[in-house]
């Protein structure tokens, strides 16, 4: 807003305002606008009582305002993100994905003895948690818990499978040999 256009056109005022604008280049944008408006109004009020201002008056008013560097030094520097004054730090939003991953991992462990349900659940939980771990809002602790539960469950499942296969081999090996003996021996009798 330029309430006193006659003042703005005085070369010294014009140069002063241009210098101030340049000096405020690194300042917070809202503060810069407020400062420029404030100083412009100040000049308008001090010099704008009708007719073009006398150069001597302009010099006096500008001297009272002081060097533009002194004004700019008082302004807050611009920040990459506008600071929220007085507001508490925003609480992290509840992270449902990590919660779902954890619940799925626990559910997989609960139905451990139904492998065709528990294995897909555990794999799903593991993949979800591992992928989600990279997203910015992720609750890392929860993701790691889901990964730990799912991994432990899958390892146990693998151990159980190995154990069963081993059992199968032990019990079936003699079975292969045993029926062979009667088969070969029976006709011999």
């Amino acid at each position, binding site marked *: 807003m330029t*309430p006193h256009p006659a003042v703005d056109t005085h070369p010294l005022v014009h140069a002063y305002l241009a210098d101030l604008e340049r000096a405020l280049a690194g300042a917070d944008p809202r503060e810069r606008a407020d400062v420029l408006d*404030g*100083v412009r109004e100040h000049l308008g*009020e001090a010099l704008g009582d009708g007719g073009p201002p006398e150069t001597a008056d302009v010099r006096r008013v500008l001297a*009272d*305002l*002081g060097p533009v560097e002194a004004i700019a030094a008082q302004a807050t520097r611009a920040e990459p993100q506008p600071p929220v*004054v007085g507001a508490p730090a925003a609480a992290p939003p509840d992270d449902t994905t990590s919660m779902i991953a954890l619940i799925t991992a626990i559910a997989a462990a609960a139905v451990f003895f139904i492998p065709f349900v528990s294995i897909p659940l555990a794999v799903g939980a593991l993949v979800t948690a591992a992928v989600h771990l990279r997203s910015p809002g992720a609750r890392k602790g929860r993701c790691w818990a889901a990964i730990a539960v799912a991994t432990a469950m899958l390892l146990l499942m693998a151990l159980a499978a190995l154990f069963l296969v081993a059992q199968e081999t032990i019990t079936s090996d003699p079975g292969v040999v045993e029926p062979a003996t009667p088969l070969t021996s029976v006709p011999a009798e």
Partner: protein
Amino acid sequence: MSTAADSVLTQLRKGVLEHCVMAHLRAEPTYGLDLAARLSRHKTLLDSEGTLYPLLARLRRAELVETEWRESDSGPPRRYYRLSEQGRQALATFEATWEPFQRDVRAVLEETR
């Protein structure tokens, strides 16, 4: 004024001058030029009138001071600065703290003279 004294003043003004601005707005709202004229009556507080404006901008951002436009008898409307309720409280806190603070500083300077 010497450069050394200037730098002491710059340090001392921090956190103090803004409360002097708010104190001037305590009785009634006023506009920039009037505020600058009142403050610069005390040269240790404000030697460059222009530095008032970044200060007002910060007070406004912190919601300690509000602005409004008012008609003027001599020219275009003026931006008036008014102390907010928050500003009033901040000023009261400052005043209650400032009294013992300046008493202590003076006492230390006198005791150690």
